[in-house]
Structure formats: C-alpha cells, structure tokens
C-alpha cells in the first residue's frame, strides 16, 4: 500500500520538476497523471493496492477543494465591486460550455456502430452526473 502511495507522490514530484524545467503551461499533477497512466499501460492492469489508494483519494476529491474555496473570503471587496458581470458571466458561460461540449460529443459519436449507451457499466442516480 505504502509503495503505491510513494509511486503516486513520485509521479507528482517528477511532474512538478518537469513542468518547472520546461516552463510548461500545465500543472505538475497533470503531468503526474500522464506518468501514472503510462505506468498502468506498461503494466497492463491496475494493482489492487494502487486501486485502493487511488480510489480512497478520489472518493474525497470534493473535500480537497474546501480550503481553497474558503479563500473566497479574501475577495469579498473585488467580487462586490464587479458582482454583476462576474455573476452573469460565470453562470451563462458555465451552462453554455456544458451544453456545447455535451452536444458536440453526442453529435460526433451518434453515427458510431457500437452506440455508447447510458446503461453500460454504471448506476444512474436520479439521472445526474
């Protein structure tokens, strides 16, 4: 178990070092994700212990955004000054982005013979994702 936690941290560390060295416009952890993915491809399966470490981390992914989210308290003034353009732009743009991305994907994969249906391999809860 500990060896796979070390592997995950190692991937992140190499990712951070790479992006620093290359001044790359992606964050270190994203490069780390690519490295771990490459490891899994090379190995051909997900080791059980790695799966349990990874799934545990991902189960609490939402929790990890809380400390940064609390940072909103530092910007009450700036947000207050420009609240209308910020609120309208965030709301409309986020909804628009969701619609455009989903529709383009649905439209482009519609003709594929093995139709990717909602029933496969998942458990719909109130139709939400």
């Amino acid at each position: 178990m500990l060896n796979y936690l070390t592997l995950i941290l190692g991937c992140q560390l190499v990712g951070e070092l790479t992006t620093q060295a290359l001044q790359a416009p992606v964050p270190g952890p994203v490069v780390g994700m690519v490295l771990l993915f490459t490891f899994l491809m090379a190995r051909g399966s997900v080791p059980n212990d790695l799966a349990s470490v990874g799934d545990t981390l991902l189960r609490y992914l939402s929790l990890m955004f809380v400390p940064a989210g609390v940072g909103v308290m530092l910007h009450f003034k700036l947000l207050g000054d420009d609240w209308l353009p910020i609120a309208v732009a965030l709301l409309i743009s986020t909804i628009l982005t969701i619609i455009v991305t989903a529709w383009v994907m649905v439209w482009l994969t519609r003709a594929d013979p093995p139709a990717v249906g909602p029933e496969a391999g998942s458990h719909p809860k109130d139709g939400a994702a």
Partner: protein
Amino acid sequence: MGELRDVWVYLSATPLLHLTLTLAAFQFGSWVYSRGKMNPTLNPVLLAVVLIVAVLLVTGTRYDAYFEGAQFVHFLLGPATVALAIPLYRQFERVRRSALAVLVSILAGSTTAMLSAVGIGYVLSGSSDTLIALAPKSVTAPVAMGIAEQLGGLPSLTAVLVLITGITGAVLGPYVLTLIGVKDWAARGLAMGTASHGIGTARALQVSEIAGAFSGLAMGLNALATAILLPLLWGFFF
C-alpha cells in the same frame, strides 16, 4: 474565562483546530446532501465553504491562520489529480474508440468557455482585472492562475472565480444535461470536466466511473488547450 482564552489561543495556533473544522464542516455538508436525497443544489463543498467562512468571520480568524491547518487537506489535491489516471486507464478502451470526438468536443467547449465568459463580462463593463480572471475560469486552478498572471491579471481573484465556476457547474450541470436530453455518461463527463474542472470531476465520479474518467481527461486537456489558445486569442482581441 482567562483559562478558556488560553486554551483558545493554544488551539488556534495548532493545525488541529482548522483541520478538524474543515473535516467537520464537510461531513456536515455531506450529511445535509444525503438527507436532501443527493439534491445537487445541496453541494457539500458549497455548504462546507459557507459554514467555514461564517465560523472564521464570527471568530475573527484570518484566512492564512485557517490555511495553516487546512493545507494538509489542500495538499492532497495533487496526489488525487495523479490518481485520476486510474479511472482513465480503466475506461481507456472507451476513450480510445472516440478519441477524435473527445478532442473536438473539448476544444469546442474550451473555446466557448473563454469567449462567452469574456464576452459577457465585457458587455456588462467588467474591469480588466475581472475580464482576465473570467477568461480561464473553467480551467483547473493552478493553470488558470498561471494564465491570469501571464496576461497581467490577479491570480488570487482568478482562483476564486475558478472555484465558483466549479461549484456552479457541479450544482447546475446535472440538471442542464438532463434538460437537454444528454444521457450518455461519456458526453456528460466531458461536459462536466471541460466546464468545471476538478469540482465537476469529483461530482461526475460520484455518479459514474465512465463520467469520472471522461471528466478527468477533459479537465487535463482543457487546461492544456486554454493555456495555449487563451494568450493567442487575448492578443487578437485586446
């Protein structure tokens, strides 16, 4: 009373207090969320943030004092992002089958996110700091902050808008997708990850591993696309 004060001073100087506050607030948020039959508007992140901000304001605690404790939770974001490789690997066969469609959808979404956010902000006469912070709002926070800095904006304001965008997408996304009749988990995941990065991905993962894998992929690729395209588009318009 003096003793109680001493205890308080001691506690607020250790990471324990604010670490516990963060976990307790999130547990409370999750409890409300499950009691409310997982209604997306009762988002646990949103509830926890509101509760913690209220506690900090009432007790007169500064954000950096809070972050001393909360940083341990914050730190886990990095390893969790790396771990997104696991659902991606499990779903890779699906992703590979529709690789071109995935790329085109993410690019379309990425461009929509940048142009619509800046366009609306501009029409409603937002300040230039606001416009720069709005432009990369759908991108994961560390990248968005880097882009904002490169364009001469405020990274910290950008981080806040990124988080609000994430919560907005996580809360409204499922309704919007159901409303427009998109049932395919791959398309739903891509949309959540492109529009609202890690927070959208966390939401997608709770419902379907397929959606989670596509969402994590979309988060990574949208970060890359925006980092490359936004400075070019910005130079073109401004």
